[in-house]
């Protein structure tokens, strides 16, 4: 299908809405009712952000039909005859996920599993038996991931086939001769591919076929699949430094024994994202994968026992607003249909500058998949994480506000995230991963020169840079689960005794977003100290000369009024502080910090007409989006993509 058209509607900014500021928000209701209402509203927002429509495409990328209503769907799998669809749906309130089967023609559905809402039980990754009468899936029960089998009409008992001692079981296929179920497990060091014999009854022992190391330290599935005739094994590995699709020949006499090492060949040409679950055609003449650029690819398999394949050819490629991953696409067994869980509201993001009243001042660059914007201290540039539609890489880009010209700061396979600016606006620091180590790196804003590693974290850990002090001496960051606020010296003298990373705040509640005051004598931060998951902004002293970082000098002062989401920023003179509330209100608070901290009443600057929805786990809370003079605010505004086909 040729590229049709893509109509983008920039969501309009309605300034008249800005004065409402939620005054009608349950003034006469109790605190509990307010909390319940807020929770319900956020659940609805999350549903809106994550709901998907089960959509069937032909081999050219044309939409054939949609199935049922939007829902929190994942792991769609078409039955062998294409008449039914197995899919997992997550309950937006309980977070429990269950397996359902839809009739493709009518959209009627049958529940297959009934996990308990009082536990963390969940189901995932269904695959069909060759005759379409049974389903196998992974379910998490009683701290174990198990592989279960049940009738595809939902009747009869569930049978446990295998209970895995570890985690991250990825069920990928049921060989069309019925003999083997293929699945993999993975962790930060790589993955292991198994087959599970399907004949017989009761629990059975898996056969380990392949172990692949990960060079990137990313625990992504191998997405392995066994050919219908059990001659070939396809899988994705990053052993070359970037993810590619490989095919390994199995012994033609393979009979369930551990095979000897056999020939392996790389099939993908320009990086592969993943291989499709149930990704082999019924006649073993073709298999399917998704390239790094999001293209759905087909590879022809030549007759014979040797590893001979055609060149990968792109069947179709959807808009980058449809984020294909291994859990939201599968193929029919005849290779004629592809079912994709498409976002119900596919969007790209437009970098947009607002004034202090919330009015749009300018749009910067073209819409794209952007995350965590950071406005440079001189106000002339915006740094973002950008997901490249060409390579699939997560890189750091900077955009000049005046011209909209974008420049790649990084361009590499490892992910690069969470940019923050140096105080002189000359460079950008960001989080990246090499092997099992997360680090903070620095590079010039225009991508020139060498990358400099500022700081390496402990093995396996994730971190999120939050701020860089105006004097250039310190960075703040938080651990990946928002448990500790760290201060790291990065300026001159960091090789001296001062060069200790300081745990500035570590307690038993959640903390994040440590932002230095302009004189670096205070830090403002988010905390849910009073009530779990209800965040407020606090200010506490910072003194790198004190063992505790100065926090004991004075008690933290609460700044926010009725909750805070994040986006904390100080004005250059330290006399105003800004933050966003969970109701999407941009607030300002007047401050005096000498001789003691005194805060005024939070005042509304403007309210966003639409919620900013977290994507890929990137909450807007972490945006660093206010100019030092407090006059401009950078947002990533949704641009609705009305035609997802290209």
């Amino acid at each position, binding site marked *: 299908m040729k590229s049709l058209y893509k109509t983008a509607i920039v969501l309009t900014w309605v300034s008249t809405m800005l004065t409402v500021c939620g005054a009608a928000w349950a003034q006469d209701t109790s605190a509990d009712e307010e909390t319940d209402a807020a929770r319900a509203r956020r659940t609805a927002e999350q549903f809106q952000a994550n709901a998907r429509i089960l959509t069937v495409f032909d081999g050219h990328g044309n939409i054939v039909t949609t199935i049922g209503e939007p829902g929190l769907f994942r792991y769609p799998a078409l039955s062998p005859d294409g008449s039914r669809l197995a899919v997992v749906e997550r309950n937006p309130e309980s977070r429990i996920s269950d397996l359902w089967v839809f009739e493709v023609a009518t959209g009627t559905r049958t529940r297959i599993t009934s996990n308990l809402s009082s536990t963390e039980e969940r189901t995932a990754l269904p695959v069909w038996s060759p005759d379409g009468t049974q389903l196998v899936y992974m379910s998490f029960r009683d701290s174990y991931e198990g592989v279960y089998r049940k009738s595809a009409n939902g009747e009869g008992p569930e049978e446990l086939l295998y209970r895995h001692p570890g985690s991250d079981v990825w069920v990928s296929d049921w060989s069309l001769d019925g003999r083997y179920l293929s699945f993999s497990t993975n962790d930060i060091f790589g993955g292991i591919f198994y087959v599970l014999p399907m004949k017989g009854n009761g629990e059975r022992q898996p056969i380990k076929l392949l172990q692949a190391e990960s060079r990137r330290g990313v625990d992504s599935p191998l997405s392995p699949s066994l050919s219908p005739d059990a001659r070939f094994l396809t899988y994705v590995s990053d052993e070359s430094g970037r993810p590619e699709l490989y095919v390994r020949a199995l012994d033609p006499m393979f009979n369930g024994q551990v095979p000897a090492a056999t020939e392996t060949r790389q099939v993908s040409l320009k990086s592969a994202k993943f291989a499709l679950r149930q990704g082999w055609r019924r006649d073993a003449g073709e298999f399917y994968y998704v390239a790094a650029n999001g293209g759905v690819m087909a590879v022809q398999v030549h007759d014979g026992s040797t590893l001979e394949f055609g060149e990968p050819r792109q069947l179709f490629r959807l808009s980058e607003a449809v984020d294909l991953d291994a859990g939201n696409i599968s193929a029919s067994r005849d290779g004629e249909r592809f079912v994709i869980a498409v976002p119900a509201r596919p969007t790209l993001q437009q970098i947009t500058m607002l004034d202090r009243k919330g009015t749009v001042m300018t749009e910067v660059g073209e819409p794209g998949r952007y995350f965590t914007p950071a406005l440079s201290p001189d106000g002339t540039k915006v740094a973002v994480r950008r997901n490249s539609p060409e390579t699939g890489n997560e890189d750091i880009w900077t955009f000049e506000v005046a011209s909209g010209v974008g420049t790649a700061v990084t361009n590499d396979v490892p992910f690069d995230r969470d940019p923050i600016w140096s105080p002189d606006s000359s460079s950008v620091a960001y989080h990246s991963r090499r092997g099992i180590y997360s680090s903070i790196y620095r590079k010039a804003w225009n991508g020139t020169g060498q990358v400099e590693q500022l700081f390496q974290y402990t093995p*396996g850990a994730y971190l999120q840079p939050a701020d860089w002090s105006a004097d250039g001496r310190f960075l703040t960051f938080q651990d990946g689960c928002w448990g*500790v606020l760290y201060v790291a010296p990065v300026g001159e003298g960091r090789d001296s005794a001062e060069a200790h990373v300081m745990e500035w705040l570590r307690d038993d509640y*959640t903390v994040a977003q440590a932002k230095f005051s302009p004189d670096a004598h205070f830090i403002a931060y988010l905390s849910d100290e009073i009530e779990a998951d209800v965040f407020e902004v606090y200010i506490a002293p910072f003194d790198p000369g004190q063992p505790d970082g100065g926090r004991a000098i004075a008690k933290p002062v609460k700044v926010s009024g009725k909750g805070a989401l994040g986006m904390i920023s100080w004005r250059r003179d330290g006399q105003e502080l800004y933050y966003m509330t969970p109701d999407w209100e941009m607030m300002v608070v007047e401050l005096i910090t000498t001789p003691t901290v005194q805060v005024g009443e939070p005042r509304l600057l403007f309210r966003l007409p639409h919620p900013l929805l977290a994507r890929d786990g990137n909450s807007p809370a972490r945006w660093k989006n206010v100019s030092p003079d407090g006059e401009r605010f950078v947002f990533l505004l949704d641009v609705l993509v009305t035609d997802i086909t290209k």
Partner: protein
Amino acid sequence: MKQSIGAACVLVVIVIGSAWAHHSMSAIYDFNQRFTRTGTLKRLDWRNPHMYLFVEAGKDQEQLETWAFEGPSPVFFRKHKVGKADFERAVGRNITVEASRARDGSLSGLIRQVTLTDGTVVSLCPENC
């Protein structure tokens, strides 16, 4: 400069230490190696990013070992019915911990499930699984 960066990195790792940092758990623990220990809860460290239980256990009184079992963040328990007070009450008493073993072979593990003295079973999955 490169050299000084390296020095700083080493220092950072020493200062923070793997025990105190939030991490992708599979870097430290092998999830395929499950084991169980029953013994006396000697103390707990209830701090972010991860809580710890220290359990003295062994096959007999001659071979007691102190195991350090790592759990999720305290925030996990703020949202569940079992919390810090329940673990504090269990100090000095027998508990059973099912865990994933540390890759370095040390006396430590990542908690999957804890059974307190009164029979209460606390699953720390999926955060720790």
